[in-house]
């Protein structure tokens, strides 16, 4: 075990992968000599050579096109998109290509070797183009897996699972936590199973659900609730596609209440899918409507970020509303 921040944990997962597969490649804008604008790939070009860790030209559609090709060839393709806000030029390559590669060919070809890493989320005074949480845009796409870690330990274990998984995966990294979140992380290899949510705090009155950086906020809200005598079961979804309906439904059947929170705008965010599914799974157990505490339906703001975000106060207000319903 060692104390690591999230960047170190990610770097370690990449390092293990590069060591494991002689053909694994890391590429993206500025990931080479410089080690990425957040330094997640720091030191790796030096260690594995310019032919395996390299800068690409500035073209996200090219990065993903290249990545699909390299993955189809059979090499682990570890592509970085510098900010999740800039993943959209690659949307066609991801949604029409990566996601459908195996299906359309009848499994003659696949891009299971593809892993896309991208920093997402707000809280860093980044305004509308350095703060987006675009996971829901991809969640409507069969063929993809989507994963979001909440801390360094999770980051390393989940990223290793994404890489080993034989499907294209997008790994969303909460950039607000890159350096802020520090914890014990094994130096050796380990994995955390995809598709499984984790109950991070048990409770009986209400279930709170989120992922990534929002988990921290959820826990603050749970603390407030606890102080007010409300016992919260707090769950980290971890994998958005495929998501763990079973664990959530089980918890909601127990508590009878659910609050979901994400940074992205509320309308058609992934909270919508969770609410839609859980109201069906748990209809007879729900004691109040499922509530969503999310970003407003606006682009991500700058000066009014504080007002915009689903903070602990807002979540706590929803918890009370749910419990008092």
């Amino acid at each position: 075990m060692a104390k690591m921040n999230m960047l170190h944990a990610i770097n370690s997962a990449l390092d293990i992968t590069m060591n494991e597969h002689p053909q694994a490649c890391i590429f993206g804008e500025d990931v080479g000599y410089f080690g990425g604008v957040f330094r997640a790939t720091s030191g790796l070009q030096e260690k594995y050579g310019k032919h395996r860790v390299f800068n690409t030209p500035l073209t996200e559609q090219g990065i993903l096109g290249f990545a699909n090709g390299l993955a189809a060839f059979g090499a682990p393709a570890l592509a970085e998109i510098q900010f999740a806000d800039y993943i959209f030029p690659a949307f066609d390559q991801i949604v029409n290509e990566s996601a459908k590669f195996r299906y359309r060919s009848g499994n003659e070809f696949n891009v299971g070797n593809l892993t896309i890493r991208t920093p997402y989320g707000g809280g860093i005074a980044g305004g509308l183009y350095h703060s987006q949480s675009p996971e829901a845009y991809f969640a409507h796409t069969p063929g993809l897996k989507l994963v979001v870690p909440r801390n360094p330990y999770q980051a390393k274990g989940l990223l290793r699972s994404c890489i080993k998984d034989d499907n294209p995966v997008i790994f969303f990294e909460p950039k607000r936590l890159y350096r802020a979140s520090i914890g014990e992380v094994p130096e050796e290899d380990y994995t955390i199973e995809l598709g499984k949510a984790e109950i991070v705090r048990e409770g009986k009155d209400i279930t709170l659900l989120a992922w990534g950086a929002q988990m921290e906020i959820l826990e603050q809200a749970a603390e407030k609730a606890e102080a007010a005598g409300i016992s919260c079961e707090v769950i980290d979804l971890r994998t958005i596609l495929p998501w763990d309906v079973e664990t959530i439904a089980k918890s909601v059947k127990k508590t009878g209440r659910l609050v979901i929170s994400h940074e992205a705008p509320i309308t058609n965010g992934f909270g919508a899918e969770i609410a839609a599914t859980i109201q069906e799974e748990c209809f007879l157990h729900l004691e109040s409507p499922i509530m969503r505490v999310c970003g407003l339906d606006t682009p991500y703001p700058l000066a009014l970020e504080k007002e915009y975000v689903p903070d602990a106060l807002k979540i706590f207000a929803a918890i009370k509303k749910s419990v008092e319903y």
Partner: protein
Amino acid sequence: MTNPNNVSLNLSHALEFIDGHALNIPTITLLDQNGQLIEGASNVDLDKETALKIYDTMRFIRLLDERMQAAQRQGRISFYMQCLGEEAAVTASAAALKPQDMIMAQYREQAALAYRGFTLEQFMNQMFSNEKDLGKGRQMPIHYGSNELNYLTISSPLGTQIPQATGYAYGQKLKHIDAKTGELSSQIDAVTICYFGEGAASEGDFHAGLNMAAVHGSPVIFFARNNGYAISTPADEQFKGDGIAARGVGYGIKTIRVDGGDAIAVYAATQLARDIASKNGEPVLIESIAYRLGAHSTSDDPTGYRSKDEEAQFRNNCPIERFKKWLVNQGWLDLAEDEAVKEKLREDILNALKVAEKVAKPPLEDLISDVYDTPIPALQKQYDALKEHILQHPQAYPSTAGRIK
């Protein structure tokens, strides 16, 4: 270049623009319309066996195209695309490759697949979306693919295969790179050819794919089929530069333009391109000039956008005829025998069609297989519910209900 801006810096003090057509791009042609090698033309190394295989393939594809076009008109298949006029471009380029080279095509390159050995039965199974289709009946007719033959399954979205080819070829090169020096340590044993139309070359993916291939030294042969049209859009509403070849210098890529109706020129150019790509670890751009003689597809009617005169002008320059004349001149082809083979082929094709159209549709499992390596729980649940639903209403789902496991 030796400056950080990575440009030539020949200073000049005269304010003059480079013209938009400053390049002089020759078009390579080696065989005339009478099947005679043009005097003074570069020597070409095309042996009898390969030449005949090229011819056989073109002949087969022409007959297959004719038959399947008709089959679509009869309502037997839903859609078809001919490669009329472009047979030589596709077949001869494929012939210049090695079997281990990857082919990433757009959709009008059935001849390359035929050259590789895709069987008549395999073609038919795909077009009839039956349970024997390698693609499990999921894509429209002509979206072929074969792992065994290194022919990537066709994808309808245009241009997407271009940067993919760059990535795939990079993978092919990787094992030839010396980990210490980062340099190429041996000739690359398998390269990639990437076909696309002059229309698809307008997509952003084209730009990304060619630029990245140049920068990363991917051994790809980019083969642009400039056939004058993208559905109804003529090439002069597609670009104002001098074809696709003029873009090669924009990327620093060695480039050649060939007469796409001349199988020999295409063969020679591609052979040379493969040599450059595999030895240097760099991409090459070939632009083939041929005319799309047929409609875009069976959904299209070109009389709505181009003149009969124009079509007539190209109708007589049949690339198959041109090559055939050369073969006859070489004494490698007997015309009577050729006719007999054609007759036999026509029969074979019709028979294969009749067999394939009777093969059952894929089973219900194939609705959910291959979305992931193994079905995710939500999908499995949806499938189970669907199965139950179908069992309750078998008459409404006749092609699968009887076979549900």
